[in-house]
């Protein structure tokens, strides 16, 4: 929930595009282009959680990394508190990383197995030259407590922790700085349900305590709904629908969103789901359809959809579909 309704959003993304060049299988053929993120625009307000949902390969992780310039965008602009991130030098960007960070998906590969937990949490502070050695050690204990671990865990190595605990370490590492915005890239996907609930609760607590802003990337719709204030749905590198969490779940406007929701497994054995089954699978992002990206699988597709690309339009609840009902 936004604490203050400020006029200027915390993060503003304008027409962001990331194109990867992929070598062709044939020897002298020109490289193919893969549009992982295709002309994406949105805003994130201070203190809110924006959920990004999509199936694998839709570009949601690339989007998350591009936002922090961990991957350089091909075109488009990103404004953080009115500073254009895309124009900052490496040094300026490094300084800004104290405020922006990412928690990645896999709690097993994202921690160096040869370093102790204490070292790993201290490392970002060392890199940014924060505090004296003693202050940093104190801060490590404080951070461990903050994420529900104890001071004695600082001397342990990553393999001595369970998956949930490692994800807590990752969060502690991200929080070591004076953090404002965290991109959570599938932070709970690799965890069991009961552990997943613990980490989700921790993220919610920290957000309240530290007034954080999250961009929460996941393919798990129920987790995203639980944690997010607003939701963006991605399909093949584009945002197809964006709006308030409650509104989107109550009345999805884009046919892909509808199909996605109807594919969620039922919540009880008594629930009879309305089934909208999509045929086929997501087309390759190297060979996008000419018109609307979803036109190849859309049950309501019209001739126009195969020719033109719909823009994301609307106020509050935005949707990129020619056939969506026009909003007042």
């Amino acid at each position, binding site marked *: *929930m936004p604490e203050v309704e400020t006029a200027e959003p915390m993060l503003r993304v304008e027409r962001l595009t990331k194109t990867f060049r992929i070598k062709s299988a044939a020897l002298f053929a020109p490289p193919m282009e893969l549009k992982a993120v295709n002309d994406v625009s949105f805003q994130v307000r201070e203190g809110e959680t924006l959920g990004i949902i999509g*199936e*694998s390969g839709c570009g949601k992780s690339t989007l998350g990394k591009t936002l922090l310039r961990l991957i350089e965008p091909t075109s488009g602009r990103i404004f953080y508190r009115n500073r254009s991130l895309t124009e900052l030098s490496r040094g300026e960007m490094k300084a800004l990383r104290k405020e922006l960070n990412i928690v990645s998906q896999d709690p097993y590969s994202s921690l160096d197995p040869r370093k102790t937990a204490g070292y790993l949490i201290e490392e970002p502070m060392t890199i940014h030259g924060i505090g004296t050695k003693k202050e940093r050690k104190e801060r490590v204990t404080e951070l461990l407590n903050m994420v529900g671990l104890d001071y004695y865990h600082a001397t342990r190595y990553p393999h001595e922790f*369970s998956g*949930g605990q490692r994800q807590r370490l990752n969060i502690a590492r991200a929080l070591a700085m004076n953090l404002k915005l965290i991109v959570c890239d599938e932070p709970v996907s690799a965890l*069991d*349900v*009961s*552990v*997943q*609930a*613990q980490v*989700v*609760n921790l993220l*919610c*607590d920290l957000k309240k305590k530290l007034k954080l802003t999250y961009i929460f990337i996941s*393919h798990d*719709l*129920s*987790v995203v*709904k*639980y944690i997010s*204030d607003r939701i963006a749905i991605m399909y093949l590198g584009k945002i197809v629908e964006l709006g308030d969490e*409650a509104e989107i*779940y109550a009345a999805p406007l884009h046919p892909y969103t509808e*199909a*996605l*929701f*109807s*594919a*969620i*497994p*039922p*919540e*009880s*054995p*008594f*629930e009879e*789901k309305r*089934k909208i*089954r*999509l045929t086929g*699978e*997501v087309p390759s992002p190297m060979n996008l359809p000419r018109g609307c990206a979803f036109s190849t699988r859309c049950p309501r597709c019209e001739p126009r959809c195969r020719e033109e690309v719909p823009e994301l339009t609307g106020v509050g609840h935005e949707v990129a579909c020619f056939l969506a009902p026009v909003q007042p």
Partner: protein
Amino acid sequence: MRTGMRQNANEAAGETLLRVRDLRTHFFTGSGVVKAVDGVSFDLARGGALGIVGESGSGKSVASNSIMRLLPKNGRIVDGSILFEGRDLVEVREKDMLKIRGQEISMIFQDPMTSLDPVFKIGDQVIEVLRAHRRLSNAEAWSEAVKALTMVGIPEPEKRMNSYPHEFSGGMRQRVFIAMAIACRPKLIIADEPTTALDVTVQAQVLDLLVDLQREMGTSVILVTHNLGVVWSLCGAVMVMYAGKTVEYATAKDLYRNPLHPYTWGLLNSMPRLGAGKEKGKEKPLAIIPGTPPDLRLTARNCNFHNRCAYRGDVCKEEVPPLIELEPGHFAACHFQTSGGRLTRKEA
């Protein structure tokens, strides 16, 4: 079609196809005996579907692999029985087991990327299964394989017979694998996390396919998963496993309406719900089960769940709770539930 395959799922609901009693599979490792499966019991009706749910490490995959007798060298079924149509699979010789695997019982695995051989055409892989179990001519095997691919909804099956696995997407590969599993029309399919590696929309397609096949062919299904939603969409009965033991076994509806074991309560509560409306700014925290599962080398002395249970008493630290039928068809292993003084579930 062989006898027994034609039966409708509803007609045959009373007949038991598989009866597992007190199954124990242990692994003998350098650091001790790991009791991966330590007391699993359930029944599966002919044509029925059973979901085995539990967290990772709860022994659900080992339990299903034990039914197929697919265990690594250091693993052994040390106790219990697996009665499949009255025959105890624990006692069956390895030679006879080869005939049962693939023909009577077949398996679908989690990862469609690694479970198909990348250097053989998918047609050849389906034919291999058929010819291993049935005496068929080349032409018959080919047409049977095409039939199997048609059943799982692969477009242009004749043409696709000559494709290699890398030409298929994840969902399509899982369909091919299901085609291999049903090619010999087995009586039981064990699906070990069949949709975990797939996206939601593709997952829904594969689940629909399993439901259709179960209805059409009257095949029984054991679905191993950690996702309760998947269980609700497919299974009539559910067995909940914790630290190698069956803690609760009931029909899906009973388990959802009236769960009896505190672990099941925790599991149901910790699922975030789409339906639950939330008021802005005061989301209820998700209910959690504190702590972590026990070391499987140190279990079997008390209730495995006692260190995480909010309702524990002294007896839980002393004795192993037996699995008892508390209501008709509803089993649970909890000291308090079985001793008469029933616990009630605290609202999350």
